[in-house]
């Protein structure tokens, strides 16, 4: 009887472990996140996992054409994670440390599409895309300035032309520019803003 109970408890724990692991996706190591939040003057953190996105999607009216598009996009995503930190003074966080830890998180299976380093201003930008069978299934954006740090992770199938639809979500306002900046057929060839490969 006691053995059966122990087996049952172990089975429950093993079955529950993947669920716990799934919900604990961390964009940054917890300690680094705490340190950044403690030093920053302004902090914005958005954590929307699949459950939350599904819930948010329910509030969007399916009969409205625009909202139906956003709803469809949001329902297909697995998560949106945004971290934005503003600092009073320069040098309050280690840009190299953040970059190293972030890139370690996304490195396997992710392809860099933008890797920009401006030594003069001390600014870095990284955009990486996770490709699954040639289709983007995740996007990671790191933008670091001496007094400002933004990290965005979008998980799930996403089309670049749909990115602008997410501008309403806190911290993703800049994605609204993606729609404006979309290359038009009438314009000449546009050069990518890629600063080079790592």
């Amino acid at each position: 009887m006691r053995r059966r109970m122990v087996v049952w408890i172990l089975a429950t724990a093993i079955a529950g472990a993947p669920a716990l692991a799934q919900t604990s996706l961390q964009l940054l190591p917890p300690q680094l996140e705490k340190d950044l939040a403690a030093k920053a003057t302004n902090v914005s953190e958005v954590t929307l996992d699949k459950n939350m996105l599904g819930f948010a999607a329910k509030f969007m009216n399916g009969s409205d054409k625009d909202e139906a598009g956003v709803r469809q996009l949001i329902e297909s995503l697995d998560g949106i994670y945004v971290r934005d930190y503003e600092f009073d003074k320069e040098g309050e966080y280690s840009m190299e440390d953040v970059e190293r830890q972030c890139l370690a998180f996304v490195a396997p299976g992710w392809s860099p599409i933008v890797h920009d380093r401006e030594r003069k201003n001390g600014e870095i930008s990284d955009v990486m895309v996770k490709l699954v069978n040639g289709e983007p299934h995740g996007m990671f954006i790191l933008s670091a300035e001496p007094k400002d740090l933004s990290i965005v992770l979008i998980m799930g199938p996403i089309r670049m032309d749909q990115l602008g639809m997410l501008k309403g979500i806190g911290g993703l306002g800049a994605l609204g520019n993606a729609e404006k900046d979309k290359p038009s057929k009438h314009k000449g060839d546009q050069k990518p803003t890629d600063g080079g490969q790592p």
Partner: protein
Amino acid sequence: MNRRFWIPLGCAVLSVAVFVPWVVRAAGAEGGFDGVLSSIEQQYHVRATRIPFMNLASLIAGTATHGGVGQVHIAEFEHFTRPADGEELNRMVQEKLGQGWSRMIRETSRQGNEQTLIFARPEGNRMGLFILDLDGNEMDVVQVSVDPDRLNDTIDKYKHHDGDLNESN
């Protein structure tokens, strides 16, 4: 034998039933909405103003929205003069809300003592939302359970109603 056994046992159970909740409450170990309020009260030496007849208001809100909104809890802290540390507040809320709640939004601004925390918890077809907003010297705390489908139906109904009114004007 029976009486000798059951009477002391009954007294013991009754004592436990009465004293344990009291002790737990006194120790600030209660969880959920009230637990968060107690912790804030203790930590920042402020007093929460609870809205009277909130249960009745919650019932009316539930009926009016056909179950779209329910279990409404609202409290307000006025004269919140102590600076609130975002990390500490976040930890306190997370600890008291307990498992199942996950943080969706956190906004912290040291300039002007501003803090916003939004936690959510799936409750079957419904979603529990916990919102804490500190702006200057005033903090509002709200917990609500929402059924998005039913709430949408109610909102749609009023949208159509507004549309009809605009057309008639």
